[in-house]
């Protein structure tokens, strides 16, 4: 459980760092792009400035040439021509540098070409010798016109440059104001993410430490429990077939911990020769079946040289690194084994004893019948023919003999019936309880009419059972009610059945949803003290004297036996002089 959580947080940390990494790359690229942009913008600003300066320079050179020329024309002093000549040179230089600056811009180049043509034209009006004043005047006038258009052309160019400058300036300012914000905020985010990652790492580390402590405790306790529970664990690397035994595994074999090389060959030396085959066979197929089936075998303990019974099972386990290991447990079950052997033996003895007892019971009661029947038959013959010839004393003795033999007959019959409820084959079939009641009533018809009894039964259910045993059960319970009925009141027995769930009847002590058929017999007879409710089901147990109510105390014991044969329960409720109620629960 904690393992997967740990791996999850590793994934989390990995993604945190991945996100932070990408954010930083993003940040770097944005910064780089911004710097690049700024570079470009400042380059073009410089460019614009250069163009404006050059253009201003150009005008001033032309003006110098004009002034020089004018001076020369007025004075005819050739020293005035020097600035004119220089101007021409400077103008060319300026053009060259301008041309360099605006190489890439065709619109500006055309403008420049036009300016150059105008400059050229202007210079063409600078003449050293004028033929006449008219020519001078015309030239002068033309020169001024050219100069004007030149000025306007330059003005246009300057103004576009200026406009460009202002927009670029604005962009520059804008960029300069946004960049730090973006960079800073992204930076903050990445710090935050990293912080989160850090916190998680710390938390995981703490978890790891506590888990490590727990693991150590667990390791210790498992070592202890291995000793107490007499088992050892081991690890088998499927690839290189190397074993790793826990300390207790060695101890179980009667060796000091880690005192020999843990492998299959060395292990086989301990195993009982008869069981070696089972052992090796089990290890042969471990890779295909991915497990070691539960095997039982014996080993010879090295130190005490006693034979112990071991049990081993194992499972293949593939860890996160993909290593295929088999984790196994070996247990010393000698004590359990011996106990089970003993229990089995005792059980066998018990079953045998029980069987013998039942057999004895059956044979005794069955074989006792034979002589008793003869005694009774002879008694009946004497009674029919010779009784009148007996003396009075003999007659009364004879009657005593008759009574005693009758009582013995009842005892033997009941006992036989009791033993038979155990012996008979338990053939379950669907039994209609209505039919069972009818048969019981016809069986008891004499008794019922004698007592003027009323047997009421609602429509009863069917149940899985042994027909004749259920009949016996009903007969016994009804006849019990008839026997203990009041003398001054007609006996009434109410029988009904209904289905109930086990958990709804607490006295069944069964919390399952298993269904039972609850059959209730309620009479209006003498009843009994509730404290005897359990006692009445015991064999030979009687609540009344033999004289008042003849009986053997077997009838209800038979009922209990029959109900138990059907895996059911029987309960009795009674109240003196108000009647008895028998509840029977039979599983459906």
């Amino acid at each position, binding site marked *: 459980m904690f393992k997967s959580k740990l791996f999850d947080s590793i994934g989390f940390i990995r993604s945190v760092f991945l996100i932070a990494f990408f954010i930083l790359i993003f940040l770097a690229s944005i910064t780089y792009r911004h710097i690049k942009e700024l570079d470009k913008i400042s380059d073009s600003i410089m460019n614009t400035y250069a163009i404006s300066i050059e253009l201003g320079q150009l005008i001033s050179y032309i003006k110098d040439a004009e002034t020089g020329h004018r001076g020369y024309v007025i004075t005819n002093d050739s020293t005035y021509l020097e600035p004119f000549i220089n101007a021409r040179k400077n103008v060319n230089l300026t053009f060259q540098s301008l041309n360099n600056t605006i190489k890439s811009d065709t619109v500006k180049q055309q403008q420049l070409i036009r300016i150059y043509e105008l400059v050229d034209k202007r210079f063409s009006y600078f003449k050293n010798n004028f033929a006449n004043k008219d020519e001078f005047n015309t030239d002068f006038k033309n020169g001024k016109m050219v100069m004007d258009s030149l000025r306007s052309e330059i003005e246009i160019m300057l103004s576009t440059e200026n406009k460009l400058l202002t927009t670029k300036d604005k962009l520059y300012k804008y960029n300069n104001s946004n960049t730090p914000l973006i960079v800073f905020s992204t930076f903050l985010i990445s710090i935050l993410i990293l912080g989160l990652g850090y916190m998680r790492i710390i938390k995981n580390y703490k978890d790891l430490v506590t888990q490590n402590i727990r693991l150590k405790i667990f390791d210790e306790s498992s070592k202890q429990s291995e000793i107490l529970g007499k088992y050892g664990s081991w690890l088998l690397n499927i690839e290189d077939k190397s074993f790793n035994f826990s300390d207790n595994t060695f101890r179980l074999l009667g060796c000091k911990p880690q005192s020999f090389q843990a492998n299959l060959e060395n292990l086989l030396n301990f195993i009982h020769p008869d069981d070696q085959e089972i052992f090796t066979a089990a290890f042969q197929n471990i890779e295909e079946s991915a497990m070691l089936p539960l095997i039982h075998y014996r080993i010879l303990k090295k130190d005490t040289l006693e034979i112990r019974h071991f049990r081993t099972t194992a499972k293949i386990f593939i860890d996160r690194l993909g290593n295929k290991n088999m984790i196994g447990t070996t247990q010393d079950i000698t004590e359990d084994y011996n106990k089970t052997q003993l229990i089995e033996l005792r059980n066998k003895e018990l079953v045998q004893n029980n069987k013998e007892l039942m057999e004895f019971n059956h044979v005794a009661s069955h074989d006792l019948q034979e002589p008793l029947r003869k005694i009774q038959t002879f008694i009946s013959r004497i009674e029919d023919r010779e009784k009148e010839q007996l003396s009075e004393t003999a007659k009364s003795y004879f009657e005593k003999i008759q009574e005693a033999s009758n009582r013995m007959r009842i005892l033997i019959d009941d006992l036989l019936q009791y033993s038979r409820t155990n012996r008979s084959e338990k053939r379950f079939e669907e039994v209609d309880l*209505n*039919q069972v009641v*009818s*048969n019981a*009533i*016809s*069986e008891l*018809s004499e008794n019922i009419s004698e007592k003027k009894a009323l047997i009421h039964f609602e429509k009863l259910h069917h149940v899985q059972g042994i*027909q004749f045993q259920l009949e016996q059960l009903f007969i016994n319970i009804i006849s019990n009610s008839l026997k203990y009925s009041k003398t001054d009141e007609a006996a009434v027995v109410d029988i009904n059945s209904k289905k109930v769930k086990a958990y709804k009847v607490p006295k069944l002590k069964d919390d399952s949803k298993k269904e039972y058929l609850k059959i209730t017999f309620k009479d209006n007879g003498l009843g009994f003290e509730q404290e005897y409710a359990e006692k009445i089901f015991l064999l030979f147990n009687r609540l009344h004297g033999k004289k008042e109510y003849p009986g053997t105390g077997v009838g209800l014991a038979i009922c209990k036996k029959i109900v138990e044969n059907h895996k059911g329960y029987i309960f009795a409720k009674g109240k003196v002089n108000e009647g008895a109620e028998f509840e029977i629960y039979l599983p459906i």
Partner: protein
Amino acid sequence: MKLFLKTDSHFLIKKILKEKLDVFNIKYNLINTNEILFLETIDTETYEKIATVLNDYGFEIIENQKNIIVQKIKETIIEMIANDQIPSVKSSVYLAEKLNHSYGYLSNLFSEVTYTSIENFIILQKIEYVKKLITHHNLTLTEIAFKLNYSSVAHLSSQFKNTTGITPSAFQRILKKRSEINNQNIN
């Protein structure tokens, strides 16, 4: 002196019977040495004569008038049950009317010859009929009780048990098992 004889008693009996019966001029068939079928009705006088003649030779007429009446009673009862004609009147009245004798006479006669009473015989026949219905027609007890005019299944069941000592369901089970065993033996 001693003589050793060999006789064919069969031949002898036949010869004697023929000689004695031919005197009466009645058509008859000798089915067996112990069974004669007369092909015409004979009056009581002739019957007595035949009886005396045969008696002289050690023959005794087994089948007599009483037996004939008893047989008739039985037949009437069997027919009555088999035809589902359980009469609404008492069976005693029914029998007296059918056979033209008082029920007291019939009853005494019946008991004398069969060692049992007419009532018992009726119950026995009814139960036998129930058995037949159970085994051959696979009827349920409820259906049978209805068919034979029993007041309830319980009544039928208890009468069955009282007559045979076993319950109808046990009867059914026993016959089923028997036929299973027989089938096994055949296979």
